[in-house]
């Protein structure tokens, strides 16, 4: 695998998978207010 392809893969994968996990953690932290309606 070329260095360029590895960099592009990391640039694409890290923000998406990291963002997904980060957003889920944030949503869980806000759960208390969301549960009450």
């Amino acid at each position, binding site marked *: 695998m070329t260095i360029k*392809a590895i960099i592009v893969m990391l*640039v694409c994968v890290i923000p998406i998978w990291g963002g*997904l996990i980060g957003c889920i953690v*944030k*949503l869980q932290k806000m759960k208390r207010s969301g549960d009450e309606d």
Partner: protein
Amino acid sequence: MEDNTQKKLGFSSPLAMAIAMIAGSVGTGNIWRFPRVAAVNGGGAFVIAYILIMALAIIPLMMGEHVIGRSTRKGLPGAFRDFIGTKKGTWFGSFVWWIVTITISYYTVVLAWVCYYFVMALTNGYAGVDKAALFATVCEKNVAMVIVFILLQAFSAWGAYKGISFIEKANKVFLPVLFLSVIIIAVRTVTLPGSAEGLNYLFDFELHDFLSSKVWLEALTQCLWSAGPGWGICIAYAVYSKRKADISLATTIQGLGDMSVALLAGIAIIPALFAFMPTQEALDMCASGNNGLAFIALTGVFEQMPGGRIMAMLFFTSLMMAGISSVIAMYSIVYQPFADAKVSKKKTFVIMLVATVLIGTPSAWSNTFFNNQDFVVGMGMVIGAVFSCYALYRFGVEKVRTKLLNNPYSGMTMGKWWNFAITVLAPLLAVAMFIWWCILSVGWNPDWWNPFGVYSLGTLILQLGGVGLVLYLFNNRIADSAGEKLFDGESFPPVPDNGFSK
């Protein structure tokens, strides 16, 4: 007492809603379309274009659709009527509702094929068989496939009939199994000798590809057909979201979840192809279409791969999980207008099941009919995305953003750029994509005007225009059936008890 009843309505938590939205968005397109289209359209350039379009136009549009659903608490026709604020607006929702009905009808045929191939993988039934000839017998005039198709329709219709609590429970199984299956395949394929070339094709970046309009249009097509703006999933599930649940964060999770599965599938599938095929043959297979990749090329690859039978079973399991969760979500969408019209649940279930089986059986029987429906529905979804932009524009994007989207319970507030995304970027991209596909369809067919051509412009005009006209003629009746308006223009009404919300 009333408070306790209200608490039981809708999704049990914001995360449960986000999971349901990911499950609804992630379909077979993430697994069998994204990898092959990325590989033949510039790899890394395509993937970056795809991520940018998702972030700047598609996810913002899905947030807007979420606002429409939660504000109006109605099925698609009523949602557009109440959000646009005039009876004439009902037509837009009716049109999208029809597109979803057609989608359920033909799309479930794919799941019948997936079931068949899962059994074949289990029994090693396709070993040594001509894969193309085998697929031809599966997708053409196969009575067994029609029966499996009907059973899958019945299961999906029943799942949505059971309501939101069932959907939540089912997705707790579907989504982890889907992720796990694709992760296991990815780990297996990237450790194959020769897989690095596949990863190079998937992620290598060339500036001339990034500047190519075709790459951007292909990326846009993938975003619109895969993530789910324009076919009502966000509007329909938002009807069941609690008033205080965060919109922007949940929708961002939906979009990121959709992209995560697509990238994982790319890493799982493309290296496998390149490990077992010469480069040109692998690229030809990617260009041969979804069915060619999944049922002809990959079955051959799995046959050669050590541990390939297990990988094949996992692959078809992932396709099934992705597909069935989307079909259940779509049934949920098409049930809602009946609930608004106070039609009983049982009657709704029977009407929609009979309708989808009748409309879908020709696609289960003939691959030509299937391809035609796939083409027409894809274009219908693009029109649906434009309708959502229009509804948000008519209501006032600044009002949507400041009063409804950025509410006190938002974990992620949207800046003024969101207005630009909804009023300029998303509609412009959708219109560009529609025109591009129309031009392509004229190029493919010397008789592009033929209303009975598989991919002709004539068939688009006949089917989409015909349905649009009929729905326009019945617009007032449909508008009246959607019940009283719940939205006051300022705040979210509570989750309605419409029979499907528990």
